[in-house]
């Protein structure tokens, strides 16, 4: 097969090798637990997420309230589960958005020489902005909401993917069998999707995993600064922001959502790292 994928094992082998690594296995397990808990939140959460119980406000963790309660007497465990749904959703949506934009740009740049320079410059320019700073400016411009946070972070991370895709496309384009397909008159879009994209699966998978992790961190940062998701929507970031006022008095309000972020991001990084080592050792230096 292609040079990029030549030294990579087949998919079944890859998965087995991947799971043999302890760190990756741990990462996948944590991720599965968190994702399952978040998805099943409506069924496993002990309370409705918005149920106020003013008499029970700021209660420390106990048998009833595993993660304590917040200033409205809402259950911290329930809220952490529900917040996980949105935090993970934001991460996934950002990855999808960044993939669609980034892959398209990268493929086009790699395949059409005339468009390569302008697109490469745009990618370079976008990468020149620090991610949070650019996201803040974009959210400020688009108006803060869940959707704009996703779009803003998607715009922020798309160039990273575009760069990787472009670099790989430039290599693949020159491969003999692609040249041959072209000579046979196979349409360009078909070559792109058939031959090129297939070889790009691993780098995209690796980048996607990391973007997922960064996006969750960035969303929490934006929410914490008060320029992200609206504060009454529970995400781990908004929960920490709300609990900040009660640090020293109700530390559990910041502790549990914080741990949830750390665990999710860590598990994603473990998985991403394992994938990278396994599938595409050459990408190692990119990050």
């Amino acid at each position, binding site marked *: 097969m292609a040079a990029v994928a030549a030294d990579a094992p087949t998919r079944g082998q890859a998965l087995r090798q991947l799971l043999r690594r302890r*760190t990756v296995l741990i990462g996948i397990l944590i991720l599965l637990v968190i994702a399952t808990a978040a998805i099943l939140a409506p069924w496993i959460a002990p309370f409705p997420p918005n149920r106020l119980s003013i008499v029970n406000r700021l209660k420390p963790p106990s048998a009833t309230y595993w993660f304590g309660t917040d200033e409205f007497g809402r259950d911290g465990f329930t809220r952490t589960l529900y917040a996980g749904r949105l935090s993970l959703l934001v991460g996934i949506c950002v990855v999808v958005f960044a993939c669609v934009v980034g892959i398209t740009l990268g493929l086009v740049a790699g395949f059409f020489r005339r468009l390569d320079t302008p697109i490469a*410059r*745009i990618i*370079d*320019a*976008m990468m*020149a*902005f*620090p*991610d*949070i*700073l*650019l996201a*803040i*400016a*974009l*959210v*400020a*411009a*688009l*108006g803060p909401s869940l959707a704009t946070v996703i779009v803003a972070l998607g715009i922020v991370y798309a160039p990273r993917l575009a760069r990787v895709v472009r670099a790989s496309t430039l290599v693949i384009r020159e491969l003999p069998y692609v040249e041959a397909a072209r000579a046979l008159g196979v349409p360009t879009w078909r070559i792109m999707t058939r031959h090129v994209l297939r070889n790009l699966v691993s780098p995209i998978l690796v980048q996607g995993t990391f973007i997922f*992790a960064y996006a969750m*961190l960035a969303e*929490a*940062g934006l929410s*914490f*600064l*008060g*320029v992200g998701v609206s504060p009454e929507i529970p995400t781990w*970031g908004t929960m*920490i922001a709300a609990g*900040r006022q009660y*640090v*020293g008095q109700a*530390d559990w309000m*910041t502790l549990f959502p*914080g741990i949830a*972020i*750390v*665990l999710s*991001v*860590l598990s994603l*990084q*473990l998985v991403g*790292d394992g994938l990278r080592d396994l599938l595409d050792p050459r990408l*190692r*230096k990119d*990050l």
Partner: protein
Amino acid sequence: MNRYILQRFLGMLAVMFVVVTVVFVIVRIAPGDPASVMLGPDATPADVAALRTRLGLDRPLVVQYVLFLGQLLRGDLGESIFLNKPVLSAIADRAEPTFFLTLFSLAIASFIAIPVGIYAAYRRGSLFDQATTTVAMLAASIPSFWLGLLLIQWLAVRFGVFPVSGYGGPGASLATRLYHLVLPAIALGIVSSALILRFTRASMLDVLGDDYIRTARSKGMGEFRVVMRHAFKNALIPILTVLGLTAALLVSGAVVTETVFSLPGVGSLVVSAVLRRDYPVIQGALLVVAALYVIINFLIDMLYLVVDPRVRY
């Protein structure tokens, strides 16, 4: 070689041009008329219209864009709506804490990450290697603001070792100001040490396998000397590269960290500008930070050219 430098330089200018355009677009799609924001809720429509004319907001976008470019060429980033002064001087006022914070975090991160990275590479696959790699990843998974909160709670409030926030107040000595940066620099440094560690390790691994290291060893040179004199020296260039880029990335972390510690830096300037809808400041800060990044990148390329004669394009 000169042709290559010229090419790279033109490339940099092109990127700068795109940066400027992107910033212009971001600020123009923002809702809310800057003129009515500037004048406040009590302004009459006539006042707003007059100000719009003065600011050139009533002209076509293309004209505004050309005027904007002209302004930039003259080094003019506009006036802050809220602070009543030129954006450039507002940013200059705030540059010091951000500069030192970045420098300190980088120093702390390097101080931890480079020795650990070297040793991990040297003992590749050992328990130490695996443990440090995992810990580094853990560090990179912590939101810096959360770590900042924990540090404030423990080191500043409970033990009173460091100041909680701020930058020392009027006329504070340099020492006082720097003392205020210790906690934020730790918070930011820990979080960003992961990248440097990983890069140091990878670069060292590359070099340690090379022939001349084997030669050095076979000559009976001490292990420490082999690692430090030969391997590290050669791994230094990629490590310096990543330090340069981390410095630029740290600005991102500084945005959040400065807010947590109430530091009057460029990052917190941007956050308050967003909350106050002070668009000229947002625009100016984005431009300055991005321009710095592009220039650092260019300089690193040039550095490669000087130190590594193999680079030829």
